[in-house]
């Protein structure tokens, strides 16, 4: 470690020397006065053109920044809200369905979803299902911990019901691309724009399926002790 | 410059040929005005000072009639250009002639050849230079141990050959 600490300034110095030599050599090239002048003005013209194009494109190209969420709003505890019955914002609800099931409910093992089963002392054969959307929020180097809510871009597949069988299908592949631009922080000293760091993070939650199953229906769940076991909670 | 060179007329010789032994004597006048011999400037085998050459060249121009009496003489700048030398040096060449009264100045017009310049030069060459050459001859003869008759014989023989 100490060796590394000693090496850093040496390497930096070496880089500095290399750049000095490079710059000096630039001076020594046989480029003439006229070349430099044309080069500079050509470049400036190109940049101005770039500015105009950027201004026009910014208006022509459709883009809408995803909604921003503050860090404290990111962690809405959905399971707790479900269990405690506190109101859940409408935007989380992906589907609300009910199914007639006789005798038993068979659920094969699945991945990428959280299943919450609530038993009711009800002898009807109706299972109420509420599917809550998976969530994805990304922080792109925002030092103030503001997240972009990109949940809308996620595609998800709803559980499939066939008589007394509920299958949670494999979720479709979600490949989300974002291109992010901001001006260098140093330039924004007086513009009031945010400063961006160089680390990013994200918060995500998988799809939540909430089933209200009457007690008369026998549950046939996959082995709880398997590696996905924690994805299913049964509230008696 | 406080030192002023005056070239005494009777000791001033001009030479047409570099190979001939020559001697120029300079007099220096000090502030009191009495003349005192200070320096010799001799040209033996080496090259002559350029201003002497200039003076000489002008002399020759006067003797061979290229420059007639009352003709305008080259200015020092023309001479400088002509000989590729410093104008001050050229001026010094002119000064030699001025001091010898071979040329004269007309204010604002330039320098002109004196009426008696050619005459003076011819006399001087006869008396001055020739006698000087005779002196040189006698020096050489003494060195070789030649008698006067032998010397005269030599001269006669040379003359005969030429004629």
């Amino acid at each position, binding site marked *: 470690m100490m060796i590394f600490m000693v090496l850093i300034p040496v390497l930096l110095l070496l880089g500095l020397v290399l750049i000095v030599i490079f*710059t000096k050599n630039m*001076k020594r090239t046989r480029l003439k006065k006229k070349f430099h002048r044309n080069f*500079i003005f050509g470049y400036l013209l190109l940049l101005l053109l770039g500015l105009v194009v950027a*201004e026009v494109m910014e208006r022509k190209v459709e883009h809408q920044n*995803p909604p921003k969420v503050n860090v404290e709003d990111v962690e809405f505890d959905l399971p707790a809200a479900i269990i405690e019955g506190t109101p859940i914002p409408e935007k989380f609800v992906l589907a609300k369905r009910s199914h007639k099931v006789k005798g038993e409910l068979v659920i094969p093992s699945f991945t990428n979803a959280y299943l919450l089963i609530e038993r009711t002392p009800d002898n009807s054969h109706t299972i109420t299902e509420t599917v809550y959307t998976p969530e994805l929020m990304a922080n792109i180097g925002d030092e103030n911990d503001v997240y972009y809510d990109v949940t809308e871009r996620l595609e998800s597949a709803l559980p499939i019901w066939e008589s007394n069988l509920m299958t949670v299908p494999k979720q479709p592949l979600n*490949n989300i691309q*974002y291109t*992010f631009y901001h001006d260098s922080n140093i330039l924004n*000293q*007086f513009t009031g724009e945010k400063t961006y760091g160089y680390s990013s993070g994200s918060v995500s939650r998988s799809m939540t399926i909430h089933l209200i199953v009457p007690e008369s229906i026998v549950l046939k769940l996959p082995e709880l002790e398997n590696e996905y076991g924690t994805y299913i909670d049964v509230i008696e | 410059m406080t030192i002023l060179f005056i070239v005494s007329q009777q000791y001033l010789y001009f030479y047409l040929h570099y190979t001939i032994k020559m001697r120029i004597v300079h007099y220096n006048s000090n502030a009191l005005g009495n003349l005192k011999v200070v320096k010799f400037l001799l040209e033996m085998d080496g090259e002559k000072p350029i201003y002497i050459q200039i003076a000489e060249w002008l002399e020759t121009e006067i003797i061979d009639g290229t420059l007639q009496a009352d003709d305008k003489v080259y200015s020092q700048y023309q001479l400088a250009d002509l000989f590729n030398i410093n104008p001050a040096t050229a001026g010094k060449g002119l000064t030699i002639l001025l001091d010898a009264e071979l040329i004269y100045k007309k204010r604002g017009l330039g320098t002109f050849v004196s009426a008696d310049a050619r005459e003076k030069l011819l006399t001087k060459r006869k008396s001055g230079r020739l006698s000087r050459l005779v002196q040189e001859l006698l020096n050489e003869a003494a060195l070789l141990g030649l008698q006067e008759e032998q010397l005269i014989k030599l001269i006669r023989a040379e003359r005969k050959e030429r004629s």
Partner: protein
Amino acid sequence: MFTTQWSVNELAKRQYLFKLSTNGAVFTTLIVLQIIGTIFISGAGSTFMNDWGEGITFNFTSISNDGQVGLTLFWALIVGFLLTSAAQRNESFSFVTNRLTFQLANFYFICTAALLGGVTTVLLGSVMKIVALFGDNIIIETTGLLTSPLDFFSRILVMTAYTLLLMMIGYLLGTLIQFSKLFIVLFGLIWFMYFTFGINLSVGEGESLLYFYYGETSILLFILKVVVSVSVLFGISFFVTNRLEVRNP
């Protein structure tokens, strides 16, 4: 006898024009650096990828003109340094100058270079923005020239100010080294100590010197700070160079 009489201003102006015509390479170097930076550093952007099990791949490209800003500031330091070279002095002193006009011309040149650095860096922002606009799902967190012209010009001002500051620092370092080569040893030592033992030269917090400028929120105070700093840096350089002999063996 004298035939020519120049005023200091007139001559400083002419020396400045002379500098502009002889130091075109300084600007060309900046442009080459910026282009290289644009292509290799920021052009590719920085891509972050997150993968959740089998389902989601989240991929985003962050584009900014940070790279160009860094390169331009680095260039500024080097250029300031190089302007003090013996060759630069000899070139100027081949023509009419004294040390004052030489210094003034250098200063004007530095200001020009700083302005060019400031303008090009900010304009490169819009070039980078175009690159971003070709991407998918664009997030743009900046205001353009038309949406808020004041912000746009404040960016140019800030960048120019920092470039100017760094150039003057490079210029002072170079001047001191020209004055005595012993300064190389001193600077080398400081540099080494700084990195090896983390000895902090600035009083108080680690970033206090930088924060003196960067932490300033009032644009007027910022300008004042920069002007005063540049004057002090230039003053020291001038004081040192005014006694410097040119082309001495």
